[in-house]
């Protein structure tokens, strides 16, 4: 299909809860999810029995040899509903990349279709004990046999190849990426639940970090954490009767790579070709253009994604994001700049997989950002994952 989605602005976010983001939470991830879900439902002015839809993307994003156990290292929609003592009319999990926009799309579709009246979207992320990505495998089977015997494994190497291509093609400097990471940590340092609360860093700290996987250093990567966020969705009509100002979903879009590749092989052209398609789809479906977005929130689970999303969304010309950043163009405290990391992102909060982007859109557009409230914001975009695998959601303060 093309053109504005019939569901545009017919579904809204009406409440939220965000747990403390910690290296290792005191309770199990499942218990943290139950607590956070109860808080979100209450925040929306509802009771647990009002919620008849549960949606998540439960992926446990570790390449390591850790077991994936429901309620411990991940939390499925069905697990959460069951442990809230509910028998929901609708429960679904989004498979694939762009987990948070994917889950939001399921929630919107469920509300618009009438499959559920009030849908809880949650995202629960776990940091297991021990090294996050280390994997002691001695044999490489299936798809992994094509890359693992060579030593090509895990998301850092994946991102490093894409980032090297960007640096070399556009002559980008590491000083520009220092500005990205400093910006994320500055904004994260102002957020009470962030792991990095009160802990900004300087450009020198970033630039003095040793390489882990050239040109990626530790500070280019978000930190694995325990954390849960929940959002309550319902129809625009029902939202009128609830306590908080609703934030409307104007549209969403996702994409998928079109070229056959080795596992974890993300050439820059693949990322950008599909990223541009996803962005066109996003503007088309939401009825919004990039110039109308005053709160773009780009994904930053690895710092190079900031450039790739800025360029995919046409917030700047292709190849120019590193220059924009270096000139202060994403400084959230500067008038006229693009506040692409005002919510701190993953680098400024911890590995919450697209939650900081979505939460910043919700808090700012509902007027609930407190001391961080930005005046006059009306349209936000929350991105997640890579532009060629992930997706984005346009949020609006008004149902235009």
């Amino acid at each position, binding site marked *: 299909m093309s053109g504005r989605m019939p569901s545009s602005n017919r579904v809204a976010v009406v409440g939220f809860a965000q747990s403390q983001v910690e290296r290792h939470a005191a309770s199990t991830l499942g218990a943290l999810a139950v607590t956070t879900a109860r808080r979100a439902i209450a925040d929306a002015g509802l009771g647990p029995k009002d919620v008849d839809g549960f949606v998540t993307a439960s992926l446990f994003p570790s390449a390591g040899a850790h077991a994936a156990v429901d309620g411990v290292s991940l939390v499925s929609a069905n697990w959460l509903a069951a442990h809230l003592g509910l028998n929901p009319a609708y429960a679904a999990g989004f498979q694939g990349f762009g987990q948070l926009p994917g889950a939001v799309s399921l929630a919107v579709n469920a509300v618009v279709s009438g499959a559920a009246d009030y849908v809880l979207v949650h995202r629960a992320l776990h940091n297991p004990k021990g090294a996050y990505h280390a994997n*002691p495998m*001695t044999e490489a089977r299936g798809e992994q046999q094509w890359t693992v015997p060579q030593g090509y494994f895990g998301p850092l190497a994946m991102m490093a190849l894409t980032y090297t291509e960007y640096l070399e093609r556009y002559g980008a400097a590491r000083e520009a990426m220092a500005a990205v990471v400093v910006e994320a940590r500055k904004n994260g340092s102002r957020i009470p639940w962030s792991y990095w609360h009160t802990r900004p860093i300087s450009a020198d700290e970033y630039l003095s970090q040793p390489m882990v*996987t050239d040109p990626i250093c530790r500070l280019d990567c978000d930190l694995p954490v325990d954390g849960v966020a929940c959002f309550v969705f319902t129809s625009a009509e029902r939202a009128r009767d609830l306590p908080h100002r609703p934030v409307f979903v104007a549209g969403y879009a996702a994409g998928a790579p079109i070229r056959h590749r080795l596992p974890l092989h993300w050439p820059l052209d693949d990322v950008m070709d599909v990223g541009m398609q996803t962005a066109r789809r996003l503007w088309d479906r939401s009825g919004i253009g990039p110039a109308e977005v005053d709160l773009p929130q780009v994904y930053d689970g690895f710092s190079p994604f900031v450039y790739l999303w800025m360029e995919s969304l046409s917030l700047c010309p292709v190849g120019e994001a590193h220059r924009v950043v270096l000139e202060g163009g994403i400084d959230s405290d500067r008038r006229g700049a693009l506040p692409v990391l005002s919510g701190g992102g993953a680098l400024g909060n911890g590995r919450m997989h697209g939650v900081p982007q979505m939460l910043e859109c919700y808090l700012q557009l509902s007027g609930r950002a407190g001391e961080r409230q930005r005046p006059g914001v009306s349209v936000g975009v929350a991105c997640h994952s890579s532009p060629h695998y992930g997706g984005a959601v346009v949020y609006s303060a008004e149902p235009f």
Partner: protein
Amino acid sequence: VSQPGRPLPVPDDRSREFWAAAAAHSLVLACCARCATFSHPPGAVCPHCGSIDPAFEFLPVDGSGSVRSWTVIRQSFLAGFDTPFVLVDVELSAQPDLRLIGRLVDGPDAPLHLGAPVRVTFEDVAPGVSVPAFVLEPVS
């Protein structure tokens, strides 16, 4: 170049000929019998013509190519690799956009740039098991 403890490939129906040739230090890749186009890795469906019965033939390819990107692994998440080591993303000259990722045996101090010419070589990692890698072509 042997590094004991590296993860070893487990050949299967789609890869047996690739690994058998690699053991003899020959690079063969899957070519679709329907459209005569290489794809790597070979899958259930030919990504070029869409055939669900690509009847892949493993044909020798010219192991020359150019570097499209690279990284230096300084901390390996896998066991058995001495760090640092270099990985290169190579576009083979056999067919546009036909890509292999492998170690660059020249090591982390080798001068690299986009488009640097390389050719395939092989690392013997266990008895009867060799893995494709790359070496920089001498500057002519």
